[in-house]
């Protein structure tokens, strides 16, 4: 029992007695302080775990959403960068393959495995990618570090992703730039620099020089259009993980019988609005840029770099007698940063679906 403490009210024995009785039920200041300190320490210990639990919950929610995307009949490619059993190291070829988890595609004869992504080094030999547990959901999510000089991912099969202006498609991905550099190419199915200028089926790359200098900007090439957004209102160096989407929606035919379509780029679920059609600014290239050479030459889909025409960019190594694609096509404009998800749909997703992808995937 606590010893009665001396009263400051004086020697009144009755009041002292009742006061002492009353005081024995109280804690001392030191005890209260100690309790508060312990509670504060416990809370401080617990808070990081609560935060991590929240991150894990978001990760699980995203993973379920990603799996449901794999079942979409129009989803051709789904790289979630998690591989098998939460491990990027695929059983097929450890650490060298992005496994396409798409399973519900309705395309006839479509084999998801043929659209796996292969980690490559543009000089040949072992790739220099780094797998890092530093994706969107911290240690729960794997990401691939592109080094900006020789790393790229090759999806060699082209049949199902040889889109034409007559059909719609959507490409979505999560990217984190180390530092934006000119030409940092997120993805491409292109042969820039062919004799007929820049052949491209579709691509997306960073271009800080479009419009007002210094503003964030992206260029895209889709079929015969080279478009640029002068200001994306996003500081990509500080934005962390950024969600990109490129959508092409076929709208019909024009008076000359040529296919028409709408191109929209989205950043973090928001459409960027009207772009500057640089093809129209320079009309002599309007018929030159195009997708047909890419289809004819079976140009592969590439992540983290652009496919370029070797004869133009590297004529010393071009052999005019060698018709192989390896001779015609070289890799350039490698991207430095991380990527941790990529999906390709063979239809134009609705705005709300793209927002849903962003909402489910954001940290």
């Amino acid at each position: 029992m606590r010893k009665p403490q001396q009263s400051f009210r004086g020697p009144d024995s009755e009041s002292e007695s009742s006061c002492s009785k009353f005081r024995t039920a109280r804690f001392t200041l030191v005890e209260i302080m100690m309790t508060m300190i312990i509670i504060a320490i416990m809370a401080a210990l617990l808070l990081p775990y609560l935060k991590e639990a929240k991150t894990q919950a978001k990760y699980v929610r995203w993973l379920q959403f990603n799996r449901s995307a794999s079942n979409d009949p129009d989803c051709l490619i789904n790289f979630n960068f998690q591989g098998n059993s939460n491990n990027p190291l695929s059983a097929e070829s450890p650490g060298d393959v992005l496994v396409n988890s798409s399973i519900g595609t309705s395309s006839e004869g479509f084999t998801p495995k043929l659209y796996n992504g292969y980690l490559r080094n543009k000089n040949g030999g072992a790739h220099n990618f780094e797998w890092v547990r530093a994706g969107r959901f911290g240690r729960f999510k794997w990401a691939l570090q592109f080094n900006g000089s020789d790393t790229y991912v090759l999806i060699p099969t082209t049949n199902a992703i040889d889109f034409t202006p007559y059909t719609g498609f959507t490409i979505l991905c999560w990217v984190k730039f180390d530092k934006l550099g000119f030409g940092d190419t997120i993805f491409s199915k292109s042969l820039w620099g062919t004799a007929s200028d820049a052949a491209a089926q579709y691509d997306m790359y960073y271009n800080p020089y479009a419009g007002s200098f210094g503003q964030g900007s992206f260029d895209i090439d889709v079929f015969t259009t080279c478009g640029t957004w002068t200001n994306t209102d996003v500081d990509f160096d500080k934005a962390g993980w950024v969600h990109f989407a490129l959508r092409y929606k076929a709208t019909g035919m024009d008076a000359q019988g040529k296919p028409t379509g709408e191109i929209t780029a989205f950043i973090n679920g928001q459409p960027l609005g009207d772009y500057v059609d640089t093809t129209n600014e320079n009309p002599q290239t309007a018929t030159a840029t195009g997708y047909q050479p890419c289809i004819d030459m079976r140009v592969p889909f590439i992540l983290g770099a652009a496919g370029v025409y070797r004869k133009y960019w590297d004529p010393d190594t071009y052999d005019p007698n060698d018709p192989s694609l390896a001779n015609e096509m070289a890799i350039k404009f490698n991207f430095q940063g991380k990527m941790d998800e990529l999906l390709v749909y063979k239809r134009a997703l609705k705005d709300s679906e793209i927002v849903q992808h962003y909402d489910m995937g954001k940290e």
Partner: protein
Amino acid sequence: MDIKEIGLYIWTDGKRRNIAIMSILILISGSILIYNLTHQPKPPPPGAIRVVICKKCKYVDLQRIIDISSGIYKCRECGGPVGLAWKCGSCKYEYYILDSKPDLAKMKNTMQKFQFTTRTSRCPNCNEEKNVNPMTVSEFKNEYGDR
């Protein structure tokens, strides 16, 4: 005094009991805190391994780079500033590129923009424009081994 007597000695006095309980709590909390601090999973280092070249002594090296323009990266040999190493495909000359602002009015389409890039990264040795690229880790290892 055996352990039972010590226990009784502490437990029968309220003040000692409180102190004992608080001490145990502090010990447990402290242990958890120390465990957490020492067992935090380390995040991977940011940036990518790039080939850099010293602007002073031309020493070529591998460094983990986030933003080369920040100026924080120094040469391992002489302490001078480093730039990203580029290599000319024609004459095999190794150099670093200089920052250059574009002439916006002259750039309308993709090819013109990329031609601008090639001009800024032009080889200072042979003036080659197109066949110039950032030096890759593989090229570095072929030339310099495990430097």
